[in-house]
């Protein structure tokens, strides 16, 4: 008995069915190509603009150009001009051109600590005209680490000089502080001497009261002198100390400002570390999941604790 019949209903219109199938496949592929093209802005009108950079560091062909966080174009070409500067050609989606003015600038910025840098275009002023096709944008290069350090150094230098001056001022043997300290020291010595005199006087009180009275007069005179000297010194301190304290205060304010700047500059580090940790955790999770998936799981040996092999002759 024949297994197949030429009149089998399933083979009716077979060629048409195959044709339809192939047509749908071709249309599907074409649709995908068009979709990818749209996604990649192949069919979008573009306008070419240029800018000149001192060097090509951080610039790559295909690098995104953004305006207020929106991708509006990319770097098309990098080339060296006659004076060995880098001429960068960028293509901008024409619909975004209305925001790019003659006074717009373009700069290289990093969106995060990890990843590529992007070019950020700043919208120009309202009064300025739209930049024409083939126009040149003003490029602001990103600050290098060396430049940041140089800036920081410039900020710190005056503060250090201030502190140096203050220390010098305090240490100067002819300076006010040293003299005040010297005078206070002398005053202590005088008071000590006065006390010794009083002690002696009190011992001899019984013997020679009159003499003692005379000595007391002298002593009181001496005390008066000493008190006068003290008053002078204190007045001196009163005059000089506020100035000195102002200087110290100013320097401390500067130090505080620099500390804040440094804090601000490095504030991204913990965030970065958190991100790295998150990424590591994610990678670990993914690896873990893959390891558990058949058939990979069957190839991966489950880790186990090992006991050191005891050796009979160690």
């Amino acid at each position: 008995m024949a297994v197949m019949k030429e009149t089998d209903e399933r083979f009716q219109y077979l060629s048409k069915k195959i044709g339809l199938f192939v047509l749908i496949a071709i249309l599907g592929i074409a649709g995908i190509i068009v979709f990818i093209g749209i996604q990649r802005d192949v069919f979008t009108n573009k306008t070419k603009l240029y800018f000149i950079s001192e060097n090509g560091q951080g610039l790559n062909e295909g690098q995104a150009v953004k305006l207020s966080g929106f991708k509006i174009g990319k770097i098309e070409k990098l080339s060296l001009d006659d004076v060995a500067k880098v001429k960068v050609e960028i293509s901008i989606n024409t619909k975004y051109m209305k925001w790019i003015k003659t006074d717009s600038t373009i700069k290289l910025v990093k969106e995060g600590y990890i990843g590529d840098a992007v070019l950020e275009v700043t919208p120009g002023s309202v009064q300025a005209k739209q930049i024409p096709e083939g126009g040149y944008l003003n490029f602001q290069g990103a600050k290098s680490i060396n430049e940041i350090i140089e800036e920081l150094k410039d900020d710190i230098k005056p503060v250090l000089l201030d502190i140096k001056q203050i220390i010098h001022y305090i240490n100067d043997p002819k300076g006010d502080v040293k003299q005040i300290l010297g005078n206070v020291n002398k005053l202590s010595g005088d008071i000590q001497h006065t006390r010794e005199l009083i002690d002696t006087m009190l011992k001899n009180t019984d013997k020679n009261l009159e003499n003692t009275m005379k000595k007391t007069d002298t002593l009181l005179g001496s005390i008066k002198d000493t008190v006068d000297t003290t008053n002078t010194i204190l007045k001196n301190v009163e005059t000089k100390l506020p100035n000195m304290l102002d200087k110290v205060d100013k320097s401390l304010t500067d130090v505080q400002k620099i500390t804040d700047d440094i804090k601000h500059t490095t504030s991204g580090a913990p965030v970065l570390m958190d991100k790295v940790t998150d990424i590591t955790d994610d990678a670990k999770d993914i690896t873990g999941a893959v390891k558990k998936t058949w058939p990979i799981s069957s190839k991966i040996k489950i880790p186990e604790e090992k006991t050191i092999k005891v050796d009979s002759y160690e």
Partner: protein
Amino acid sequence: MNRIPFLHLILTYTRPLVLTIIFPLLFICPGCSTGPHQPSERQQIAIESNQRAENAYKKRNYIKALNHYMEALNISRSLENADSMGSNIVNIAYVYYRMGEREKSHTYADLIINKNPFEYSVRYLIDAMSIKALLYCDESNGKEASFWADKALNLCQGVSCREEGRIYNIRARASLLNKDIKAATEYAKKGLEINKKIDDVAEMGNSMRIMADIELMNKNYEASRGLYKDALLIDKSLELSDKMINDLLGIAVTFEKQGRPNEALPYYRRAISISEGMGNMEMEKSIREKIEKMQPQKNP
């Protein structure tokens, strides 16, 4: 009639194929996605600590190894995982033994032997008893060493035990300490036989070295040297530097005992070179002292 038989065959058998094979597979494969039983997250941390400890131990960083084994032990204790606890306690006892911290090593080995806080697997018990025997060997206490080695051997009888050859070696060393050369020879031979059977090359080297030591004590210098040389070959192939030094020193001593210091010297020098390579200054110094003490060979 047979215009497109192949196509017909496919169409005829596709449905049963889908129904009988592919469709059930869709239900089976989610089951396939679960691999073998994975350790819990905390046990995983204990395993990682254990592995870090093993790496440190291999690099002879015993303090670091101890810290990691302790960490692993604490985790397994908190989970009351007896197997993991047993493994880590034995490891700690052995690392202490290698560090020369005998008392601490005894303490940890006793945890297993005294079933503290519960009974451990026999293999850990055998390991703990072996460590005790080794500790007593180091203390030159042949009697206690024999006692613990015998206990370990008894335990080995009941189970399939890969450690038997190693324990016979320890027993042989204990007998040597007891000056029972005959028993030592028997145990060492038995050890060698078992180690050969289970292909435990490192322990085969140990058996040979013990036998060489026995021959040296019996003043059979040629036989002793031959055994040391065999042991050296094994130890070199396993890159066991400490044991290589022992073998070379053994060879040198056999020559020296025969009044052939000139032939002993190259072996001493090789031992010095290995000690220098290992950074073992103490060993290097002691070998140099041996050379200095060596009597110069008289010309015939």
